């Protein structure tokens, strides 16, 4: 078993982000640069962050939230998990031993619970608009968790959280709809265009999550997309009518 070292240990997404922003010392930047040059996974991360940064900059203010790191960090965690490393852990002394009675009970729960989850999420996501199709795909993908009761349980928790994000975004969207009735068409169009991009990001994240239901990393991506949308909506709502951008000064 090899030990993790500074050269094999992946750079955190936060550190990469700080590096791209020029917010770290030259010494640290040199170390990050060297690692990225030798590590394909981190190079991909850098490219992804750069790409996301550029596309988000096109949206203008507000800038993407700092929560972006968590999404990328999840990917790196998965990488880390694959790497050999020393750890203290609970043992798997009963791993995989599920009784027939438990399995049967879960099968019943799957049918009932799965239907309830789909219905609940559908209602809240519909308010956001533009991603109903993705929701349908998501529901269909739930069967991909197979018969592992813990995966199904986890998927349900993640779906609840996604529904909460969607609900919050929906409430902000409703406020925005009222506010922008007072705006000029050009401003409405600009906001609509940016929201469409953020919706696309959610749809894309949904699709990624659907490919591996019950995967925490892809769920993090989806949550991050929702957070970006919520941040943007909140910012636009606070700016309010034309002219408020100049602030109160």
């Amino acid at each position, binding site marked *: 078993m090899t*030990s993790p070292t*500074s050269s094999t240990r992946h750079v955190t997404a936060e550190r990469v982000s700080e590096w791209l922003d020029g917010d770290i010392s030259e010494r640290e930047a040199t170390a990050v640069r060297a690692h990225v040059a030798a590590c394909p996974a981190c190079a991909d991360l850098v490219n992804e962050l750069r790409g996301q940064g550029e596309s988000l900059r096109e949206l203008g203010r507000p800038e993407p939230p700092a929560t972006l790191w968590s999404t990328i960090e999840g990917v790196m965690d998965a990488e880390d998990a694959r790497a050999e490393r020393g750890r203290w852990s609970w*043992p798997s*002394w009963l791993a995989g031993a599920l*009784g027939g009675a438990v399995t049967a009970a879960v099968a019943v729960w799957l049918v009932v619970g799965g239907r309830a989850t789909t219905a609940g999420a559908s209602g809240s996501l519909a308010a956001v608009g533009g991603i109903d199709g993705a929701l349908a795909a998501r529901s269909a993908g739930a069967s991909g968790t197979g018969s592992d009761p813990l995966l199904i349980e*986890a998927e*349900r928790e993640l779906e609840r959280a996604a529904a*909460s994000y969607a609900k919050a975004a929906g409430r902000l969207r409703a406020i925005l709809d009222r506010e922008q009735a007072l705006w000029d068409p050009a401003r409405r169009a600009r906001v609509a265009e940016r929201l469409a991009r953020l919706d696309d990001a959610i749809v894309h994240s949904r699709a990624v999550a659907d490919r591996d239901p*019950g995967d*925490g990393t892809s769920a993090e991506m989806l949550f991050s997309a929702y957070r970006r949308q919520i941040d943007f909506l909140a910012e636009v709502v606070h700016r309010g009518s034309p002219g408020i951008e100049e602030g109160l000064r």
Partner: protein
Amino acid sequence: MMAAAARRPPFSDGAPLAFGASTLSLALVLIAVPRASWAVVGGDAGTLAAPASPPAAGAGPVRAVDGRELIVPIPGAERLRVDNPLGGIVVRAWDRADAMHIVADKQSSSPEALARLRVHFTAWAGGEISIEARVEAGGRERALPLSASRVDLVIEVPAELGLEAKTFAGDLSVTGLRAGARLETTGGRIVVNDVHGRVITHQLRGGQSVAAVEGDVDLDGVEGHMHLDRLGGTRVEARVVDGDIRAEDLRSDDVRLSATTGAVVLFGVLRPRAHYDLRSYGGEVRVAVVGAPSGFELRARSSVPVVSAIPLVTLWQKGDRMRAVTASSGARVTSTATTATAAARPVVELSSVLGRVVVESVPLVDRLQ
């Protein structure tokens, strides 16, 4: 918490723990700390073997429980990352500078599910410590939340250790740290107390209470109330969509509090040259100035007239926006005030699209009582 305390031998026939080269030394000096009926002792990387005992009749719902408690030397550690999607995290400083104390409790509805909950401790060569709770599901370990199983972590650390901690539905509590904290949770409550260094939070729902922080504070939430108290960094920023923000005794020069549907309340002394920016879309925005106001400039936006218990002189007004100064300082502005005096006035920006904007004066004696 434990409806059915597990009675089991501390070690049995499980496979030894695997430690990498960098952590081997740690494994050899693990210190035993008895914890109820289970423990890890010495360098024996033992495992728990016996399934949880069933509870006594009438003891309530069956809950399989298990736990571990470790004191781990962490020489040279600089940063702690804790990722627990399965439950809560409590991190507090203790008086040892070279070791950390970890208590991990797990519980589930069945021994089978319990056995699939894991907690990993890793000491990285670069000075980072990571503690991760994982569930074995779908053939591999995953960072996933569960509703019927949970792992709760209580960690005591050297105060100078930087912290990143993340939960899904579990609460996050941090006390006594001196190198800042970055906290993220989907549905847990965040509580921070007595921390030096920058504090950053991200939360979907659950509410946040942040007090006695000497460092910049940046709080982000979607649902839930925020309570800020005795913050002393250069900058304080808090944003929430659905929830109130109540801030007391802020000693920062740059304060930005923003709620979309909730109220924003600032209670305390206004500092010279400080800038306060309080905004809400639908809620009331209120400043309660403690003590005799030394004069401030008010920039307000409100669809209804600003309510102020402190006499104001309006400098400018257009639509729902206005600028004013307190009456005493207004007199100085129009007569003898110097530029330096004007620059020393705190600026208070208050904005509510639908709610009221209120300025109150609270006698210091009331505050002290």
